[in-house]
């Protein structure tokens, strides 16, 4: 997957989890704070990403996925 594809995929899953969030997502900022995600939402996001990419993300790596940019670089490194 290219970075753009990863980004599109993450945004799509975020949209499923938080459909009522309509503003632009700032890729550098914390997702949980921007979209008001709780730990259940975060888990659902990780599951959705796992289903889309096959990457099994250990709990210890969640902090690396706090922003959209973080998700992209983390997933890129894991998919190599």
């Amino acid at each position, binding site marked *: 997957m290219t970075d753009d594809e990863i980004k599109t995929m993450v945004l799509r899953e975020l949209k*499923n989890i*938080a*459909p*009522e*969030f309509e503003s632009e997502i700032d890729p550098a900022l914390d997702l949980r704070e921007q*979209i*008001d995600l*709780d*730990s*259940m939402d975060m*888990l*659902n996001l*990780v*599951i959705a990403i*796992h289903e889309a990419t096959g990457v*099994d*993300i*250990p*709990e210890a790596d969640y902090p690396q996925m706090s922003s959209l940019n973080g998700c992209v670089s983390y997933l890129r490194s894991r998919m190599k």
Partner: protein
Amino acid sequence: MPALGADMEVGTILEWLVKPGDAVKRGDIVAVVDTEKATVEVEVFESGIVQQIFVPLGEKVPIGTVLALIRTDGEIAAPPAAKPEPVAALPKIAPVSTTPRPAAPTTVQRAPRPAMPPTVPGRLRISPLAMRRAVELKVDLSIVKGTGPHGAISRADVEKASKAPKAAPPPAPSPVEKAPEPAAAPAVEVPSAVRERKPAVASEERRAAMRKVIAAAMARSKREIPHYYLGTRIDMSRAMAWLQAQNLKRPVTERLLYSVLLVKATALAAREIPEMNGFWVDGAFKPADAVHVGVAISLRQGGLIAPAIHDIDRKRPDEIMVNLRDLVKRVRAGMLRSSEIADATITVTSLGEEGVETVFGIIYPPQVALVGFGKITEEVWAADGMIGAKPTVVATLAADHRASDGHRGGLFLAAIQRLLQEPEKL
């Protein structure tokens, strides 16, 4: 119309999933109802045969209204629609749930309308999809001509009718069961997206309605319930270590959240101290047999729902996690079941996500206790003469002083604390 929570006053039938002649068994979902707070799948409380349906699709009725008649298994089969029976002689009436419901004001029971000729089914023949379209397009169903089997109205019929110039309604009454208002569809606001499992994006109106019902329930709680409050800080190091070790072994789809442990410990403690688990009804405390824990789930667009997970005290954490995930998903989509909304015997609210340490809860009537958990924080902790840093959580109890005293409340929180020290046994 069952009272789906202490705060509900009216409900609208969005969908009938049964028709006269259908066999139903306890727990089956027979209808979908829209309340101010959510779209709710109504489960039936008796097994039997559906005799007659009284409230048509799209109609808004007060709680307590008879929705349908179900002949229970033991009863003699009366020929359907033989003669109108007086209300008092009605066999058992279908809906609702086992929970005592003092909140529900006794409302007028609508007398069954005179029975219809047996050849005419007591419901509009229309698919749920077509019903939704009709509501969306504000089509008066009484003037739609059905082209489906047995004159059933299809989505295409509805769409065709919406494009047709608005003719005066035909003088002849529709063959459909008559609602007091002319075919109710246009008047009703239905979150159609919900039924298509699309996310429910709350409209301003819906948000305002939800605010109103929360206001009514909470005002009633503060007016009537003499709350007392207790709190204690709990060592979570064992629970968190156990959870981390578990999650390391598990595939992502089977991971647990710590709130599952908190909810389970609360349920077991409620079994030990039964004064926390039940309802204050008619001036007396009625303990509940089962422990159904209401889990407060906030909606991002504002508002709050605390649907129940049933029999938590008897479920393994894995099972509770599956239930919780499913529940959060359906809350976000605005689709719940009647028993989930009405059955909670105690409520847990966990505001740790927002970063608060301590929750001072308001009891959801007619329940008698609400347990709050704050954020998990690392604290300096002295134990066995040693000082260390440990993850901790503050557990609080808001309890009804009519039903219990502080001593019992204290034992209850102590039980939660003790249970969380042995997470592997939860």
